[in-house]
């Protein structure tokens, strides 16, 4: 039980410190992607790129 408790405490405080002191987010609809230069330079490529990366806007 003590080990379980320590794991819970460690997990909870790790999340909090990572968020509060290093700005890390772990929940929410977001993703980090490295935009290739072709995407950056091509009109319309954003939508395709984002769609392929899991962003499906609209209803």
């Amino acid at each position, binding site marked *: *039980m003590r080990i*379980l*408790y320590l794991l*819970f*405490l460690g*997990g*909870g*405080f790790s*999340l*909090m*410190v990572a*968020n*509060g*002191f*290093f*700005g*890390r*987010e772990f*929940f*929410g*609809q*977001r*993703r*980090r*992607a*490295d*935009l*290739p*230069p072709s*995407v*950056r*330079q*091509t*009109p*319309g*490529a*954003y*939508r395709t790129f*984002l769609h392929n*990366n899991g*962003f499906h*806007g*609209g*209803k």
Partner: protein
Amino acid sequence: MSTLASCPSCGAALSFRPGTMVAVCSYCKALAARKDRDPELIGKVADLVDTGSPLGLGASGTYTGRAFTLAGRVQLKHPLGGVWDEWYLALDDGRWGWLAEAQGRFYLTFTQAPHGALPAADSLQAGGLADLGPDGLWTVGELSEATFHSAEGEIPWAVEPGAIYRYADLSGRNGAFATLDYSEDPPLFFLGREIPLADLAIRGGTRKPTKLGAQNLNCPKCGGALALHAPDQTQRVGCPSCGSLLSVENGKFAFLKSLKQPHQEVVIPLGAEGLLGGEKVICIGQLRRSCTLEGTAYPWTEYLLLDSQHGFRWLVESDGHWSVATALPPGEVPQAHEGQKNLWAQGHNWRRFQDVAAVVEGVWGEFYWMVEQGERVQVSEFVAPPRGLTRELQRHKNGGEEVNWSLSTYLEPSEIWTAFKLAGTPPAPRGISSFQPNPHKTTLSKSTLWIVGALGLLLTLVMIESTTHRNIELFSRRLDLVEMAHLGPATAEARRGIPTRRPAPAAPPTASPSPSDSAIGEAQEPVFFSGPIEIKDGHQNLAVTLSAPVNNSWVSLEGALVSETTGVAELFLLESSYYHGVDGGESWSEGDQTQMVFLSAVPPGTYVLRLAPQWDGRMPPVGEIEVKLRQGVMRWLYPGLALLAILVVPLLMVFRMAAFESRRWQESMYGTNASSSGGDD
């Protein structure tokens, strides 16, 4: 100043102090009553029983600064067997004190003129209250009769050989003790308290040292060896070899009857010595008792222990659960009424657990009362784990009755094995004992420091975060969706994607996007590009907020925070959706006009925000939407998760603690339903 006289029987010198009513001739055991001229012979006394008293005639001591001498003693017989001593203290101020000695305890009382009418003996009952008016409310510990047995020295009252004296022992708080002597009319009132012998600083006399020895005898039935460890107090012996019940009179056995003893699984053998609570004890008796509930017998074993001060205590074993019990003066416990569920005593709130009739089934070893098979006492048990408070009401054959309270403390089986150096390991206890400490409560108590420390750390972190998270607004813009919706492919050509470096700084934001500073759509979709956003702190999170006055409609926003330096993009999706209506006469609503998404901290640098709003149909449902980008936004989800992490295990412990208590009280006559109705304090 003592008066000297001659024994009316043998002529030996007799001494009569002021207040002495009767003197016993030390030569011929004549009982001489004080008269105006010569003492009058009123009989002869039997030989004194060796009670093992540590006191002796002629001993001196002090009480509240007054010197006294032990001038005499009377031995009285209890109806359940046994003889107790009553010593008489002649104080140097002329007063007399009564020092009663029973089972290693001493009670010092003085005659007292009652301030009110004393209750009649017939109006009292053991365990009940005795209202002495201005002299207080007392608990009746015992209502019985004593028979004069013997005496020595000088006696301050008119004893008679063979006389029977009716009395009521009263018990009060903090060791207060009183006796109502109904041998006279009106009854005599003696008031005092239980007193440790050390407080009397007794010295001299024929005082015997306390000892923990044994007197070896043989069973008159089978010849088996029997060791008496408390020969001065033992009344009955159950021979472990042949099952005979023996009486003890002046250190000699007499066969009473053969007992049909039940099978006994002995854990602590007779004569086993141990160290319990730092006190050397020896097991001198084993008692098998049981109670029957709904046709099922529940047996348990009691081990009688004798300590080095000639005091008794009990070790009780039931289904592998152990406890040690010591006697408690009845006056220390408030009166427990019939069915009373809660009792406040000894600084604890006790909950009534059960009321049963306990019956003696088996007897092995020596006992300080005339125990017999089938002996029945009414037991009421109150619990406040890890302690139990037990009231035993016993009726005497002669009509008297007494109530005994005992305080039990739960012991781990391993403590018994260690105390008596028993071989092997103790068997695992079965079920839950009535006052077994809740192990989960103990664990929770041990975890309290951790919980408090973790909560303190959490509070500190929250305070630090709340001061460091300034909620800085990096970008705020109202986007005109109508205008964006009409941007065609031709205008989109004005801006091809995002340059790695902007050639010129962006113009200040305007109400509607313009191709020169930001808003240019990609092919077939309205898209807005912000001007460069400078992010300086790489350790603070970001939050994008979308606000749209949607009404039974929705607007979503595909966004990307793109680093102009590295091309790394934080992609996100937001949706403002609000629907409401009336269904079946009840209004409803769902969604929210404002939504926020949190992004992880990004390296310091220059960023561009790409915002692509979307909606259903050709025309946007709202004219404008507002988008904000802020940095250092306190997100309470994480302190909440940390709080949950702190509390989840304690909550689990509380749940298991409650489950344990539920199982405990399932065995009680005053279980869950009774407890929920509240207490009767």
